[in-house]
């Protein structure tokens, strides 16, 4: 098992190198000449050339990529063209906000969705099921940013209960977290329901009932435990999505997270910032995916056995 984890971590290296390579090239090939962007309006050819030299733009691109990767090992992702600040530091400043939002949203979603999914599955084809599914259906059909706008209209403009944006204390977290969480909740509900429905039809459920186990034990002990893998998968995917930044919710609520950092930097053509932030997000996502894969092993002995064999 431990060998498997080490192997997976080692395997992450080429994956990160490949992704960062693609991103670095894409960004630097299409971003236009940054020297022109950076130079003052009335700069001479000489000055522009100096800036190029200073930024190392005259080296061939693979040399620049090599230097960039070496820098990355030291936590140096370059300097923003716009703010002149260290990219890595900026990213790390924004990251806690994104993590805060992501975890709160996923937590809200899970707390609502998993019980609801189980409940609808148990009451399949009754009005309770239909009600739950209509909720989930609206949830997945609604554009997330629109839900955010609606929440602002209701709770901050009309009722004036909560702030409509920014980040000041716990109260400003509620609306963004609800917005992101509701979209997730809909998806998790649907996944939980269909996973539970698959499991409910299994023979071992009848075995458990035939033993004399109560319906509660049957559903939770035998049912849920077997349905967990797809549920964990979807929760994990939502979490890794949220960690790369819920761009839209962050925009709607002016939440100073990673997602907005990327979108803002794109619109300002801040190539080092965009490249750095996206590469860091990918690293983060790799780590989250690894953690989820390891959680699988915790719940399913078959997957654990598989890992041990591969390890």
């Amino acid at each position, binding site marked *: 098992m431990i060998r498997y984890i080490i192997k997976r971590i080692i395997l992450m290296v080429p994956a990160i190198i490949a992704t960062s390579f693609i991103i670095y090239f894409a960004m630097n090939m299409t971003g236009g000449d940054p020297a022109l962007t950076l130079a003052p309006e009335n700069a001479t050819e000489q000055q522009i050339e100096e800036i190029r030299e200073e930024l190392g733009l005259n080296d061939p691109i693979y040399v620049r990529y090599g230097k960039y990767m070496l820098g990355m090992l030291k936590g140096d992702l370059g300097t923003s063209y716009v703010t002149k600040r260290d990219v890595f530091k900026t990213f790390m400043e924004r990251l806690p906000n994104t993590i805060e939002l992501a975890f709160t949203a996923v937590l809200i979603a899970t707390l609502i969705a998993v019980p609801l999914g189980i409940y609808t599955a148990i009451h399949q*084809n009754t009005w309770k099921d239909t009600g739950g599914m209509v909720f989930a259906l609206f949830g997945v059909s609604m554009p997330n940013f629109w839900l955010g706008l609606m929440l602002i209209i209701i709770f901050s403009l009309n009722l004036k209960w909560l702030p409509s944006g920014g980040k000041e204390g716990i109260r400003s977290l509620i609306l963004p977290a609800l917005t992101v969480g509701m979209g997730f909740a809909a998806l998790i509900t649907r996944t939980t329901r269909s996973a539970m429905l698959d499991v409910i039809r*299994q*023979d*071992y459920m*009848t*075995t*458990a*009932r*035939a*033993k*004399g*186990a*109560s*319906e509660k034990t049957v559903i939770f002990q*035998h049912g849920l*435990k*077997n349905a967990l893998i797809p549920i964990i998968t979807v929760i994990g995917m939502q979490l890794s999505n949220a960690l790369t930044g819920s761009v839209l919710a962050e925009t709607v609520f002016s939440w100073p997270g990673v997602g907005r950092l990327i979108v803002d930097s794109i619109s300002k053509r801040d190539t080092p910032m965009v490249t750095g932030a996206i590469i860091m997000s990918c690293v983060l996502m790799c780590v989250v995916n690894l953690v989820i894969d390891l959680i699988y092993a915790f*719940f*399913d*002995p*078959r997957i654990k*056995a598989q890992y041990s064999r591969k390890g």
Partner: protein
Amino acid sequence: MTDKILEVKDLVVQYVTDDGCVEAVNDLSFSIGKKKTLGLVGETGAGKTTTALSILNLIPSPPGEIKSGSIMLDGSDVLTMDQEELQKMRGNDVAMIFQDPMTALNPVMTIGEQIAESIELHEKISKKESMERAKEMLKLVGIAESRAYDYPHQFSGGMRQRVVIAIALACNPKLLLADEPTTALDVTIQAQVLELIKKLITERDMSMLLITHDLGVVAEVCDDVAVMYAGRIVEIGTAAEIFNETAHPYTEGLFNSLPNLKQRGEKLVPITGMMPDPMDLPEGCSFAPRCPYATEACKKANPGLRHLGGSHYVACQAYERENFKLGGEQ
């Protein structure tokens, strides 16, 4: 007190779906004596598994529904029990062995836990004690105690079926329902498992309802036999009566279809046609359309069980005719 452990009377079970109503079990009556084994024989769709699940009151509902009838288990009616009584009964008084050992075990629990769960549910003992008991059960069915901490995927089909048996027998039930316990297994493994079941129920003075399509297995294990066709019992009696004085045309057809009784070169005599659609059973006797002895009368009314002597009953109108004998009249 009677000497019967189980008495099923006039049981009717239906499955109601969008496409129509399936009459899975119709007016079913039979009983099992203490320490006796009854074989319930029939082909796919005859209603055998539904019968077994009804005894545990475990018909999946919806779509299934027990319409009427009574199932007396050692004097109390399973169909009127409340949830708590049912849970107390299941696994403790009546236990079940399922057909497919590959799917009957929970893949994310160790087999030790699964056996112990059964014991914990019915006896007030600690987790540790129940695990010890589970290990004893494993030894009893021929699996090393050390494997109690393994998961189902680490076992072969035959071994898993042994685990299923261990779960069923963990609380010393009075009645064992075995639903095609050896069908999914290879012949040599089938023989091992069958011997094991036979040995254990004799040792523990248990009764058994053995559901199978294999007349060979019935001959090996059962004291009494009931033959089912399209949700009804068409013939019931002691094994000797059914095998040696076969009375129902369907039972006769089953025997004639078996290749292993025949010498080379002799032709099999299959039953013509096929099982009727359970959603659209023919009027009168369900077997009439396939029956070589059927007359117009058979297509009108459903035959009741007729006593032939001993404990032998048959549901066939042909016996209204004088001197009717299978194979003889035609």
